[in-house]
C-alpha cells in the first residue's frame, strides 16, 4: 500500500515538475463596458480543452504553454473574443454585448422567452443600454421616439398629465389607446385618461402611466396588438408593454450613485406673444439623486435602489416631487426551483396650475387676451403693453400662481413574485402572482382671495371658497400559471406554452366638494356644505391559453395558439371569447444558397394572423337607473338600457413582412404591412332622440387600420474606437370607420362649433364643423355645414436616432416626426373673440361682429406636421481616469438636452391638447374613465419644456 502511494506521489510530482518546466501562468480580470466585473466567463486555450471560468470578481488564472497560444473568452450575450497571449502574464479583457445574440431572445410575456428568429410578428425591444443616458421619469415619455412603430405625444407640459399613445392607428371609438402594462408579469394600473371622478383642473388629468416604476428597467418589450398579444386575450387590442426589472448579478457588492441636476426652460416657440414666456416663465431647477446597491452570489442576487427627484418647473406655482424605493432579487432555491421577486414604492407629489378650461389657463390668459378694462391695462394686446401693463400682469400671474392650490399625491406600491420549477429537462412550470396598489388624492382648494385675484368673483366676496377632492384607490391583482415545454425531434423543434391567467381590478373613487369653505382651512369639515359622490368599477378577466411554436431545421417556424377568455364585464348572454392566432416565418438566410452570402446576412419573411380584444367597460351591460342626490332628496331617472349580449371588441390583425440584414447586419431593415380590423367595435352611439334614452355601449361598428411599418438601422462605422449608427422608422397608416352599425354619427370630443366625430367612411375622431368660402370682398360667400375639416391622426409618423461613440465619448440623438394630421387652434378662436386674431380670415369677416365663429370653424383647423428632436445627449465614460482613485470603480458624466429643437407647420404646438383626455362635450358621452382620446384641440396649456441636465454617475 505504502509502495503504491509512493509511486503515485512520484508520478504526480513528476508530471507536475514537467508542467512547471513547460508552462506559465497568465491571469487577469474581465469587465463589461461599464467596468463591472463579469463572473462565469469561459476562458479556453484555443485548440485545447484547457480552460477556466472567471470568479465572482471576474478574476481568472490559467496555465498556458510557455510560448504562443490564443485565449478565447466567451459568455452568452457577449461577443466572444480571441486574444493572443504573446508574452503577457496579465490579460484584462473588456467584453461587449453581442448585438446579434442579444436581440435573439425576446420576452413575449405569456408566450415565454423566444428566439427572435422564431417570431412570426415584429416585436420592439428597448434594453437598459438604450436607456443609459435617458433621464427616466415616466414610461411613455421614456419610450417617446424609442419605439419605432408607436407614436407618443405629450399633450401638455404639466407634470404627470396624460399623453396620447397611438400604435397601429386608433382601433376603438370607445376606449383609451394606451397599451396594457405588465411589470415583471404583473398587470399595473395604466389609466391614461381622466378618471370616473375628477378635480376640474381644466383638463390637466393625472395619468397612471406617470408613476409606473421605471427606474430599474432591465428590458422593455412592446407587443403590438394582434397575433403578438393574442395570449393576453380580451385586454390586449392596444398592445402589451412588458417591463422586466433588474434583479442584480452575482459578484461583489456594487454601489452606484447618480445625480442629475438641470435647468428647466419653458419653450416660447409656440406662443403668439412672447410676453407669455417673458412674464409667466422662469428657469426651473431639476434635482435628482439616486442610489443603487446590487450584488449577490450563485444562489441569491439582489438589486435595491432609492431615488429622490424634484422638478420645481419653469412656471410659478408648479412642482413635481418624487420619492422611490424598490428592489429586485433572484434566489436559486434548489436545482429545480427558482424564485424572482421585485417591488417598488413611489410617492409622487404634483402641484399644478389651472389648465386650459379655466378662467386663467397655463398661459395666464396672455396668449388669448386678458380683459384689459378689468385689469386696468392700456390694451389687451401683449405686444403693445407698457412697462406698467407688464407690472400689472406680472402681479396677476404671481397672485394667481401663489394663491392657486391644485395638488395631486400618489402613493403606489407594486410587487411581483415569480416561481419557476424545472420538472424535467425541457419542461418548466412558472407561477407569477403580484399586485399593484395605487392610491391618489387630487385636490383643488379655491379660496375667496384666489377667486378675486383671478377675477372670477367681485372683491370682498367671502362665500365662494371651496375644496374639491377626489380620492382614488386602485388595486390590481394578477395571477399566472403556465407550463413551458421545449423539445427537439429530428429536424423539428417544439416550443409549447399552456397556462391560465387572471387579473382583477378594483377601482374605488370618492369625490368631496365643499362650498363656502372657510378661508385658509384645508379640511373639508370647515365649510358650510359638502357633497360627496363615488365611482366604483371592478372587473375580473380570466382565461386559459395554449401556444405552440414548431420549427423545422431552424428555417421555418409555425406559430399557432389561442386564448379563451371570460370577463365579468361581458353581457350575461355573451359567451366566453375565443382568440386564435397563427403565423409562419421562413429564415431564408439559413438556406445554403444564402448562408455563404457576403451581402445578405439575414433574410426572413413572416406572416401572421391574430386576434385580441378590448373588454367593455364594467357594468355597461346592465340596464340601470340613475340615482342622484338632488337638493337633499334621492332622484331616480332611467339610465342606460343595457345589453345582455355585450361582448369585447375584437381586433384581428393580419400582417406580413420581411426582415433583412445586409453586410453582416451592418444594415438592418424591417418592413411590415398590416391590416387591423376591429369588429364588433364598441360604440357609445345615440339612439333616435325621440326615445329619450341615453347612449348605450353596444357592439355596433367596424374600424379598420392598415399601413406600412418600415424600420431601418444602419451601423455606418463600427471599429474599436469609433462607432456610428443611425435608425429611422416610417409608419404609414390609414384609419377609417368601415361601419357605423346603423347608428347616427356621434361626437367623441371637442366643442359644439367644432367637434371630433365618429362617422362611417371617415377616420375616427375626424373634425366636423363649418367650412366657409369667402367672396372676393372677404365676406362669407357660403358655408358648408358639418364639413369634414381634417383628422387628428397622421398619414405617417416615425422616429429617428443617431448613436455615436469615440472611445469613451458617446453621443445620442433621438427625435420623431409626423405629417398628414390636423388639429384645432383653439387659442386662435379666443384671440378672434378678443381682437387679437391673425389675418387668416379676410378682413371683411375677421371679427365676431362680421362673422360667426361657428361659420368660420374650418379656418382654425391647421396641419400639424412636425419634426421634433427630443433628446441630445453627450456622455463621457471616466472609468479610465478614476479606476485608480480610491474605491471608485467607474464614473461617467453626461449632458442632456431634452426637447431642444423643433420644426412645426402649425401656429401652436401640434402635440398639445389642452383638454388632455377630457371629453369636452358634457352630456354627449357619459363615459369619462378610459374614454377614447383622439386629441387635436390645442389650447390653454404649455408644451413640454426644454431641459438641460447634467448627470454624474459613480460606481463603487
Amino acid at each position: 500500500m505504502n509502495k503504491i502511494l509512493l509511486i503515485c506521489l512520484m508520478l504526480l510530482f513528476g508530471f507536475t515538475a514537467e508542467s512547471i518546466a513547460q508552462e506559465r501562468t497568465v491571469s487577469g480580470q474581465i469587465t463589461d463596458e461599464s467596468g463591472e466585473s463579469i463572473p462565469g466567463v469561459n476562458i479556453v486555450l484555443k485548440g485545447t480543452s484547457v480552460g477556466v471560468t472567471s470568479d465572482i470578481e471576474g478574476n481568472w488564472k490559467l496555465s498556458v504553454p510557455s510560448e504562443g497560444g490564443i485565449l478565447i473568452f466567451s459568455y452568452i450575450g457577449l461577443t466572444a473574443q480571441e486574444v493572443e497571449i504573446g508574452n503577457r502574464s496579465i490579460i484584462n479583457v473588456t467584453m461587449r454585448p453581442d448585438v446579434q445574440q442579444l436581440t435573439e431572445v425576446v420576452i413575449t410575456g405569456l408566450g415565454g422567452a423566444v428566439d427572435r428568429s422564431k417570431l412570426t410578428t415584429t416585436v420592439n425591444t428597448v434594453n437598459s443600454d438604450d436607456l443609459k443616458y435617458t433621464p427616466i421619469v415616466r414610461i411613455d415619455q421614456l419610450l417617446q421616439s424609442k419605439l419605432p412603430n408607436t407614436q407618443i405625444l405629450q399633450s401638455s407640459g404639466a407634470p404627470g398629465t396624460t399623453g396620447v399613445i397611438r400604435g397601429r392607428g386608433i382601433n376603438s371609438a370607445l376606449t383609451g389607446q394606451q397599451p396594457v402594462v405588465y411589470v415583471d408579469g404583473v398587470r399595473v394600473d395604466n389609466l391614461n385618461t381622466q378618471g370616473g371622478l375628477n378635480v376640474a383642473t381644466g383638463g390637466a388629468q393625472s395619468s397612471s402611466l406617470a408613476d409606473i416604476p421605471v427606474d430599474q428597467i432591465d428590458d422593455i418589450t412592446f407587443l403590438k396588438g394582434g397575433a403578438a398579444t393574442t395570449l393576453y386575450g380580451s385586454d390586449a387590442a392596444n398592445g402589451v408593454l412588458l417591463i422586466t426589472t433588474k434583479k442584480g448579478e452575482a459578484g461583489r457588492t456594487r454601489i452606484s450613485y447618480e445625480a442629475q441636476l438641470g435647468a428647466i426652460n419653458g419653450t416660447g416657440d409656440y406662443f403668439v406673444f412672447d410676453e407669455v414666456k417673458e412674464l409667466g416663465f422662469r428657469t426651473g431647477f431639476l434635482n435628482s439623486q439616486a442610489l443603487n446597491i446590487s450584488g449577490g452570489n450563485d444562489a441569491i442576487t439582489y438589486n435595491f435602489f432609492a431615488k429622490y427627484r424634484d422638478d420645481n418647473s419653469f412656471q410659478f406655482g408648479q412642482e413635481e416631487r418624487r420619492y422611490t424605493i424598490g428592489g429586485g432579487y433572484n434566489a436559486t432555491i434548489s436545482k429545480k426551483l427558482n424564485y424572482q421577486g421585485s417591488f417598488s414604492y413611489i410617492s409622487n407629489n404634483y402641484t399644478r396650475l389651472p389648465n386650459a378650461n379655466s378662467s386663467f389657463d397655463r398661459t395666464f390668459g396672455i396668449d388669448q387676451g386678458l380683459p384689459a378694462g378689468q385689469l386696468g391695462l392700456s390694451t389687451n394686446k401683449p405686444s403693445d403693453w407698457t412697462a406698467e401693463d407688464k407690472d400689472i400682469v406680472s402681479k396677476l400671474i404671481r397672485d394667481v400662481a401663489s394663491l392657486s392650490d391644485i395638488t395631486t399625491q400618489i402613493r403606489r406600491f407594486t410587487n411581483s413574485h415569480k416561481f419557476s420549477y424545472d420538472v424535467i429537462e425541457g419542461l418548466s412550470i412558472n407561477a407569477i402572482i403580484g399586485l399593484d396598489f395605487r392610491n391618489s388624492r387630487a385636490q383643488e382648494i379655491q379660496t375667496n382671495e384666489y377667486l378675486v385675484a383671478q377675477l372670477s368673483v367681485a372683491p370682498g366676496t367671502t362665500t365662494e371658497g371651496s375644496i374639491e377632492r377626489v380620492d382614488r384607490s386602485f388595486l390590481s391583482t394578477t395571477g399566472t400559471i403556465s407550463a413551458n415545454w421545449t423539445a427537439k425531434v429530428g429536424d423539428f423543434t417544439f416550443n409549447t406554452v399552456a397556462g391560465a391567467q387572471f387579473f382583477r381590478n378594483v377601482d374605488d373613487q370618492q369625490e368631496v366638494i365643499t362650498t363656502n369653505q372657510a378661508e385658509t382651512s384645508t379640511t373639508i369639515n370647515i365649510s358650510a356644505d359638502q357633497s360627496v359622490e363615488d365611482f366604483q368599477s371592478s372587473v375580473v378577466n380570466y382565461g386559459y391559453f395554449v401556444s405552440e411554436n414548431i420549427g423545422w431545421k431552424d428555417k421555418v417556424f409555425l406559430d399557432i395558439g389561442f386564448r379563451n377568455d371570460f370577463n365579468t364585464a361581458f353581457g350575461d348572454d355573451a359567451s366566453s371569447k375565443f382568440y386564435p392566432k397563427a403565423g409562419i416565418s421562413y429564415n431564408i438566410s439559413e438556406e445554403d444558397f444564402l448562408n455563404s452570402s457576403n451581402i445578405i446576412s439575414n433574410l426572413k419573411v413572416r406572416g401572421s394572423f391574430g386576434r385580441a380584444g378590448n373588454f367593455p367597460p364594467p357594468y355597461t351591460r346592465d340596464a340601470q337607473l340613475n340615482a342622484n342626490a338632488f337638493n337633499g332628496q334621492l332622484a331616480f331617472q332611467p339610465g342606460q338600457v343595457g345589453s345582455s349580449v355585450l361582448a369585447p371588441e375584437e381586433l384581428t390583425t393580419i400582417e406580413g413582412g420581411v426582415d433583412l440584414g445586409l453586410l453582416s447586419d451592418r444594415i438592418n431593415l424591417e418592413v411590415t404591412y398590416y391590416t387591423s380590423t376591429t369588429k364588433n367595435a364598441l360604440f357609445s352611439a345615440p339612439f333616435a332622440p325621440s326615445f329619450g334614452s341615453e347612449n348605450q355601449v353596444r357592439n355596433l361598428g367596424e374600424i379598420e387600420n392598415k399601413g406600412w411599418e418600415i424600420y431601418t438601422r444602419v451601423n455606418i462605422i463600427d471599429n474599436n474606437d469609433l462607432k456610428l449608427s443611425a435608425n429611422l422608422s416610417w409608419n404609414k397608416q390609414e384609419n377609417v370607420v368601415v361601419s357605423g352599425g346603423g347608428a347616427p354619427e356621434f361626437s367623441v370630443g371637442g366643442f359644439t362649433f367644432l367637434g371630433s366625430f365618429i362617422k362611417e367612411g371617415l377616420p375616427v375622431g375626424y373634425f366636423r364643423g363649418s367650412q366657409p368660402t369667402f367672396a372676393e370682398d372677404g365676406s362669407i360667400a357660403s358655408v358648408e355645414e358639418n364639413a369634414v375639416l381634417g383628422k387628428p391622426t397622421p398619414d405617417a409618423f416615425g422616429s429617428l436616432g443617431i448613436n455615436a461613440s469615440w472611445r469613451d465619448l458617446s453621443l445620442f440623438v433621438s427625435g420623431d416626426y409626423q405629417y398628414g394630421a390636423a388639429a384645432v387652434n383653439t387659442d386662435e378662436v379666443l384671440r378672434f373673440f378678443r381682437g387679437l386674431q391673425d389675418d387668416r380670415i379676410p378682413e371683411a369677416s375677421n371679427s365676431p361682429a362680421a362673422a360667426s365663429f361657428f361659420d368660420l370653424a374650418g379656418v382654425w383647423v391647421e396641419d400639424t406636421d412636425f419634426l421634433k428632436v427630443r433628446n441630445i445627449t453627450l456622455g463621457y465614460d471616466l472609468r479610465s481616469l478614476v479606476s485608480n482613485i480610491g474605491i471608485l470603480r467607474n464614473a461617467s458624466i453626461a449632458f442632456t438636452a431634452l426637447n431642444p429643437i423643433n420644426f412645426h407647420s402649425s401656429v401652436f404646438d401640434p402635440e398639445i391638447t389642452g383638454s388632455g383626455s377630457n371629453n369636452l362635450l358634457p352630456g354627449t358621452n357619459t363615459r369619462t374613465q378610459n374614454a377614447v382620446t383622439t386629441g387635436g384641440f390645442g389650447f390653454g396649456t404649455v408644451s413640454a419644456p426644454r431641459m438641460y441636465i447634467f448627470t454624474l454617475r459613480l460606481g463603487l
Partner: protein
Amino acid sequence: MKKNILIILAIFLALSCEEIDPTRDINNPNLLLENVIGSPGSVNSWIVGQERQMAIVYNQVLELTELGSDNYVNVQTFFNQQFDRLNITFQDADVNTIAFRIADLRESGKIGLNDVFPADPTATPEQEAQLQFYVGWAKLLAGELFVALPDEGAGAPLSPTENLNNAVSDFLAAEAIDGNNPSYKLALARAYHRLGDQANAVTKAQEAIALDPTFTRTVEFDGTNLPDNDFADGLFQRGNFDDYQPLPRLDFLDPKYFVVGDEESPVYIQKIEEAYLIIAEGQLADGDLAGAQTTMNILLNVVAARGMAMLDDAVENRNERPTGTSVTVRASAADAFKADLVLDRQSGEIPVFTISGTSVVSGDVTALTTVTGALELLYLMRQEIFIAEGRRFVDLGIRIPISENEMLTNSNVTDSDLQAFVPSFVPTDMDAFTFDAGTNEVTITHNMNAVLVANRTDANVVPFF
C-alpha cells in the same frame, strides 16, 4: 385509504378555490329598475328625478332660445352662435340635444306613470297628477319649440298643434285628479293660448288666479350635486368671459340668475303674471282697451310685489357695450329715448329682479289710447317679465327642426320636418343697436314688439289675433 385522502384533498381544494374565486364581489353597485319597481317611496324619488330632468331640460332650452331671441347676444362664448343668428339647422348638435332632453322627460314620466306609480303602495293621486304634468310639459315644449316632433320613440312627427293638443290632454288629466293645483290650470292656459283658443285660455287663467293670485312654480337646481344653473354661468358666473349680453333696453333685468355660494337661482317656469298677460291679450283681441288697461295695472302690482334682491355684480363686464346710468336707450329710431334702463355695475350693489321685473309703469298703461299701442306695451311687459325664461323665442314664432339623428334613424321624418321656421318678419340681427359714445345714446335697430304687433295677424305670433 389513499382514495379517501384524495377525495378529502379534492374537497378542500374545491372549497379553497371557491374562497379565492377572483370574481367574488364583482357586482354592479348601481341601481337596477327591477329593484325599484314596487318599493315604497319609489314614486316620490321618481318625481324628484323628474324635477331634476326639468332642470336638465331648462339648462338646454334656455341657453339656446334666449340666444335665438332679441333678449341676449352671444358675445364670446362656446355656446351656440347659430341660434343667435337664427341659422338653426337640423344638423346642429344642440337641436338634437333639446329634442333628446324633452323626450327623456316625456319617457321618464311615462315609466313613472305606467310602471313605478301602480306598484308603489305609498303612491298618492297627487303624485299621479304630477307625473301626468311632466309628460304634458314635455309635449308643451315640443309643441312650442319645434316644427314637428314625435311623441314616442321613432314615432311619426307631430305638428305643433298636435303636440299642444296632447299636452292639453295630459294637463286635463292632471287637473281631473288634482283640481286645486294652479299649476295645471296655468299650464292649460299657456297651451290654449299658444293654440289660439282664447276662451279656454282666459278661463283657465282666471281659475289659476282664483286658486293662488301669487302662484309661481320653479325649476330648482342643485349647486353642489348638479345640475347647477348653466344659464347662470353664461349670465353671471363666468366673470371676465361675459358670455351673454342683454339688449341694452333690458340691461336692468340682467342678471336674472346668479350664484351665491351653493345657492343657485331657480328658473320660474310658471308665474301667475302669465295669467294676466293672457287675459289682457284676450281683452285686446276683443277690443276691450279699458279692460286690458285694468288687467295690466293689476299685473304691474303683481310684478311690483315680487320684490328684488341686491347683488354685487362688479365682476360682470360689458366690454365695449354701453354701461352706466347716463346711458339712454330707444327701442328703435322711431321711438323716444328712455333713461334708467342701463345700470352702473361698478359702484356698489345693483337691484336684480329674481322673479319678475318691468320698466313699464302705471302711467305708461294709463296713457295708452290704441289697441295696437297697448298690445306693443303688453308684449314689452311679456318680454321683460319672461326674460331668460325661454319664452321670447316662442313669442317670436321661431321653431326648431327635427334633428339629423332622428332623421337617420326614424323613417317617418320628412324633408319639411328638417327645416327650421323663422317668420319672414323676424330679422336675424334682432340684437343689433347703435351706440353714440359721445351722447351715451343707444338706438336699437329693431323694435321687435312693434314688429310683432304689425304682424299680429300672422298665424305664428300673437295667438289671439
